[in-house]
């Protein structure tokens, strides 16, 4: 089981984990299971400023193309270059090597959910 301590989630199914100055962003286990086989990601350029909730890129699975949103605001310092050749990492390890971008100068978003609240939110969605 990956370490989800301190991880927070957006209702659009991205996660963010802050470690000192840097925030790492990815998508949740639930999101990857809903998307199915990820085959391509369109990611922002380093240096790009994102607001919380802004579109950060596109994730494509065999089934469909979906927008990705940044759970917090900040400046992009890195996009996961490994995903270019291995988009399947998002499926295999969404909280680890399937991370998507890193941000600095983070502006927090009070609307994010902790893991327990996110799990309850997902539970509610899958029964609606």
């Amino acid at each position, binding site marked *: 089981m990956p370490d989800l301590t301190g991880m927070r989630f957006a209702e659009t199914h991205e996660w963010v984990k802050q470690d000192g100055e840097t925030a790492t962003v990815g998508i949740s286990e639930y999101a990857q299971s809903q998307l199915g086989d990820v*085959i391509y990601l369109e990611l922002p350029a380093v240096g790009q400023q994102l607001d919380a909730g802004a579109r950060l890129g596109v994730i494509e699975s065999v089934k469909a*193309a979906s927008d990705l949103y940044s759970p917090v605001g900040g400046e992009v310092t890195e996009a996961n270059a490994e995903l270019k050749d291995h988009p399947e990492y998002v499926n295999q390890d969404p909280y680890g090597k399937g991370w998507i971008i890193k941000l600095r100068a983070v502006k927090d978003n009070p609307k994010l959910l902790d893991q327990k609240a996110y799990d309850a939110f997902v539970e509610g969605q899958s029964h609606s």
Partner: protein
Amino acid sequence: MVVTAARTPLYEEHVRLGAQMTNFGGWVMPLQYSTIREEHHAVREAVGLFDLSHMGELRIGDEALVQRVLSRDVTRLRPGRIQYAVLCNDAGGIIDDVLVYAMPDRGYLLVVNAGNQDGDFDWIRKHAQAADAARNVGREWALIGVQGPRAVDLVQRLTPSDLASVKYYAFVDGTVADVSCVISRTGYTGEDGFELFCGNADAVRLWRALLEEGRSDGIRPAGLGARDTLRLEAGMRLYGNDMDAQTNPLEAGLDWTLNLEKDFIGRDAIMTSRQRGLARQLVGFKMLDRSIPRHGYRIVSDGEGVGTVTSGNVSFTLGYNIGMAYVPPAMSEPGTRLGVDIRGAAAPAEVVPLPFYKRPHPK
């Protein structure tokens, strides 16, 4: 109104195997059991098992009626043989694409798309002399696809029939795992293999026997997700995506399914369209970057929309992204550069011949 999706006799098997289910053509069908990528590779490299029971089956005894509604000259079809054909409306638009089986009793079996079966049946009955000329047996029959390089060997171990004598696009009556079946050497994946028709009551027994016996072959159940990526690589059109009632068979590149020297519904319109020249043609293309073309995306040239993508996805076998699109005939030659409008930018693509993928050693 709540329309409940129909379940095939294998529904419980799919749930037990942990399939993610989806609605398709009025049926609740397995989308994937593991991942689409794994199921796709299993079919290309070993063998995959498909529930195709949603497909429709129409029995027609009246040969003149079959001749009238289908694009092919079925009088040339020997019993035990199968042809791919289209069903057209008066304007030459495609109502459905079908497989027609010449049955030993001289009647015909049409295997039609799930979502079209009721419409096809009504259309055919409308042109029949007798009210009972056609019978819809789709809901009485299950259909199981066994596809991949290991498929023939696997099915042979479960049947006394000599499968070497069942050529591509031929069929025999027989038993597989002691279940009475029509054993049809057809498929929608680009691989060798069979499609097995059996009664609903026997479907679970046949499905389980194939999964059990196929274990040593590396068999995997495969869902509609893999079925779509496999058929696209094989250049096979999907009704509703790549063609519909507004498309004629010439535009769809299905000239080879037309016997224009015989009379059939839509023939005159198709001949007129051929004389006038086509406004658009279906082509295959490959992406020259990593972006993914999708159904409905525009084909652009110098900023102008000149066509439409009808199917597109990753090709797991080839390692690049592929699609089919309608383009003006002047842009249909292999090697022609196209732009695909993906989120406002023209992604580079190149017309390539269909099919994208051909299996290495056809038997």
